[in-house]
């Protein structure tokens, strides 16, 4: 295989990470992973109307309010990020 930079695995991954939000990498920490999962989940709840209405019934809110709440939760789905350790 021709060793070209363009095709090595790292640059391919970088390309994927840039294009598809949520693509993981080797140094992904627990927090980042969880944030991604949460955002994906909230987006899925918003997209699947039956699921959204199921939540709305449980919480006795209107579906519109429930959708807004889920959108709002996408900002900080897992609370504040941990402090970065300088290495």
């Amino acid at each position, binding site marked *: 295989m021709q060793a070209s930079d363009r095709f090595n695995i790292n640059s391919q991954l970088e390309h994927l990470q840039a294009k598809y939000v949520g693509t993981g990498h080797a140094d992904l920490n627990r927090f980042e992973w969880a944030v991604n999962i949460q955002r994906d989940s909230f*987006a*899925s709840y918003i997209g699947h109307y039956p699921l959204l209405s*199921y939540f*709305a019934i*449980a919480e006795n809110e209107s*579906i*519109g309010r429930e959708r807004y709440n889920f*959108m709002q939760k996408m900002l900080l789905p897992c609370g*504040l*990020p941990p402090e970065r350790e300088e290495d």
Partner: protein
Amino acid sequence: MYLYSLSLQRATGIVCATYGNFVGGKTQEIVVARGKVLDILRPDDNGKLQTLLSVEVFGAIRSLVQFRLTGSQKDYIVVGSDSGRIVILEYNREKNTLDKVHQETFGKSGCRRIVPGQYLAVDPKGRAVMIGACEKQKLVYVLNRDNAARLTISSPLEAHKSHTIVYSITGVDCGFDNPIFAAIELDYSEADQDSTGQAAAEAQKHLTFYELDLGLNHVVRKWTEPIDNGANMLVTVPGGGDGPSGVLVCAENFVIYKNQNRPDVRAVIPRRTDLPAERGVLIVSAATHKQKAMFFFLLQTEYGDIFKVTLDCDSNDQVTELKIRYFDTIPVTSAMCVLKSGFLFAASEFGNHALYQFQGIGQDTDVESSSATLMETEEGFQPVFFQPRKLKNLVQIDEVESLMPIMDMKVANLFEEETPQIFTLCGKGPVSSLRILRPGLAVTEMAVSQLPGVPSAVWTVKRSVNDEFDAYIVVSFVNATLVLSIGETVEEVSDSGFLDTTPSLAVSLLGEDSLMQVHPNGIRHIRADGRINEWKTPGKKTIVKVGCNRMQVVIALSGGELIYFEMDMTGQLMEIEKREMSGDVACLDIAPVPEGRQRSRFLAVGSYDSTIRILSLDPDDCMQILSVQAVPSPPESLLLLEVQASTGGEDGADHPASVFLSAGLQNGVLLRTEVDMVTGQLSDTRTRFLGLRAPKLFSALVRGRRAMLCLSSRPWLGYIHQGHFLLTPLSYETLEYAASFSSDQCAEGVVAVAGDALRVFTIERLGETFNQTVMPLRYTPRKFILHPKNKTLVILESDMGALTTEERDANKKEAIEAAGGGENGKMYVDEQENGEGEEKEDPLPDPQYGFPKAPSNKWASCIRVLDPKAGETTCLLELQDNEAALSLSTVTFHDKELGTVLAVGTSKDLKFWPKKESAGGFIHIYRFVNEGRTLELVHKTPVDGVPTALCPFQGRLLVGVGQILRIYDLGKRKLLRKCENKNFPNTITAIHTYGDRIYVGDLQESFHYVKYRRDENQLYTFADDSCPRWLTASLHIDFDTMAGADKFGNIYFMRLPQDVSEEIEDDPTGGKIKWEQGRLNGAPNKVEEIIQFHVGEVVTSLQKASLIPGGGECVLYGTVMGSVGALLPFSSREDVDFFSHLEMHLRQENPPLCGRDHMAFRSAYFPVKDVIDGDLCEQYPTLSTELQRKIADELDRTPGEILKKLEDIRNRII
């Protein structure tokens, strides 16, 4: 096991809606998305909403917009779904279909975070459409037309911004300048990095304008500005010559007008006076009304209040004032459409949808908030308060029933009718109801009148062909005939010319304007000028049967002689031909004269020797037998029904004209046989058992077309609906004889006799499978059980964040008193007084206005005993101290002292956020007293968690409390703990038992098979599932098999392998179960998944039932979207092969409308296994004739056979 899945009732909830001129012409239609179904609705002249078209799309529709190319007369529909594709649809009027004009792929399928489909916005001039995702991606497609005036679509232009959450997008109306799209965006990149939380606190929503440069063909971020952080929705403000352009930003508590280079104009949304201060007011749906000279917006809040928003502009088109005025209150909607004809269509989030008519446009002095009077204080902007009042500007004119959401469902024959009833708990909060569904069409009774005897037959007859309405109702008795004339009133007449001293055999219009009465001794022909011709039977013979149409009459004399008459040019009835039949004739029928013809070609004759013959009436071979059919039982009644050639139109796909001979046999079976139009040969017979009595067949008119009424032990209607021939029972009593009826008051009715009464009724809501009986409930119903012995229902209702009825009544009283004291602010005293006055007459009904909001940790709950037959609540226990009833079961404890008791599991102080917790719960034990009509508390046992599942088990009670499964026995003061197993993963939500085996459903982890060892008094889990399943419904199928449904809309069956099952049962010492260890904390054995199917809606209940008498059992399910479906096990391998091939061909030849691959949709979470999608198979009749033939050829069948197969399998279910 193979299953055939079929939706019986399509989803009734509405996700989103849009409206426009899709048909072309003046009328406006509404397009609604019901999750995976796309419907086109139209209000008819009487203001009733009619469904024009309903298509299953096998995908999740998330957004809809409509657009029109400049200068065009017709709108297109753009659909945003989970297909990763943008789809543009056009309504095809000729074929009554939606045609896919464009389908462009842009991403992966599924409802993903960054794949567009969630939002759609269109340039008001129809030049471009933007499709957006929740995060990052937005694509713009340029719409244009080519030389042949066809719609073209460009390749997508990206308007992405990473790390950005999008709340809403809309097109900005800027006339014919470059198209602009506005979006509410929130950038989270910094908040994700900053551990101090400062960035998150400072995160600011922005309003961004994206401009599509049509010249350069790219999209630029033109303008972005911070907006209120509560912003959630954008509404386009008319621009160009019609208004100031820009957008309305709807935010929590505010509506803000924004436009580039213009100052913001902000006004607060008025609040209900009883709203807790910490709650915001959010706009959830909006509608714009635009006329030549004016426009306004209707915005609805999450509490259901509609506000009318108007903008005042100065001469520079600069907005000077934004006014928000209270308009009316209706149940919360997911979409509103203001039609040009003055209707407001409100698609409710939960419960019935409604069509309202505007009575006013809110010009009165209602509470108004304006940007001009906006007051900013230190605590923020000063709120404006109002009190909801009765509808003033809107008046409801139609209601469309919606089952959404079905919370629980049970099937039983409590009323001892021919078919079982489906009891469903529907709705949420104030719109909760118990709905009893019966298969069949609803009937509206118009009149019932007693007759002076027991009639044997009834006919209606017009005076002339050109008359619109019927002139007479003729009723025949054993020895007399009664003639009633239809006018303003229906009254007896004697001047009609009919002979009233004899019974009648047939009455009809003959020729242009003469009438005919056939009686046992002859035919009486009454000419329009009053002349009467009488034909007498020869000798002592009497007429026994008659078949006639407008030109032809055939009579059968006793002994089996047939005489054929035809009307000649002069209007004389002439005898043409005779024929001796071998024996007495059982029944006769002639089809109506086809349009443009002299006569109908076929005569059908049924004989007592169990044969049906087709005779020719052509002059060349008159009365020759063309074909013979042997039938299993003597025919009782015949009807030749022409299924008219239709090229689509309002309710049909392509249908070649064909004549069907229907025969009601004495054994209760209806035969439908196709008659060859040329040779008269009979082929392709379909049979259906209708009831215990021999069906009598009559023709009726349904939507202007001939349809068939079959009267057996219950009445049935056979008619064509959207390309399908449907034979549906009517929910009405047994009838003897019927005729179609048309009068001033009732265009398409039926007049029938039953007993000694004459009944007139109409049939409504054609095409529906079920009709409903509705009984309102107080709070959101959770679960219920049927008490088969007492024939009552016990229903649990509980609402979170709601006040109990007592508290609400107290508050209401207080509010009235406060208003009476004039303390509630000077400005609104008038309003309050008005409100008070109304409240005294009729308090604001909750279903309309909703419940007042309470803090989210407050619960209101009740236990209700309801007698469904009388429709009355016999006992209602409201729970106190913040308890909420969540589970129930009947149980007979083994000491039997109390008999069967009711166990109810309640929670105390339950809350879900920020963490699910409760202050424990209780198990209430109630005794049924007063013949099971009321409940009496025996005792109440506190438990350490919430008892979420209860089940009787060997004279004791099994309780799931969180992770613990426990066995309780009855004590004097409370329940006594006998045994427990603490090792369940999350929360037990369902328990079923069979013998010693217990099936435990967990909230997240599917089913666990548990064995109870009596000698050791221990519970062992010996098998579980390998997939995590968020269980929402469960059903016990057999000893080894369970059916479940998960939160993501899948239904699955799982079965314990035969060898494992035997091993467990045959293990005498039990040592194996006891010591065997599973891996990774699981059980030692795993169950196998044998059925897997994605429904696409959260399934909330599963039931095993047989909906037709003598039919096989199937599994019924109900969903949150208000649909009811069935899964029928196939009985033969051939059927499985046939339907799986049909499904395969349909997948190929008829890909779903919105671009989602059918197989991928049914396998959205788990690959579909051994389920054939009947909804797809039933699209076969809607295909073009060539395609139908092509598929049929590949299956080595004829299209007719395929249609018959489809009809047969449907008839096995319902």
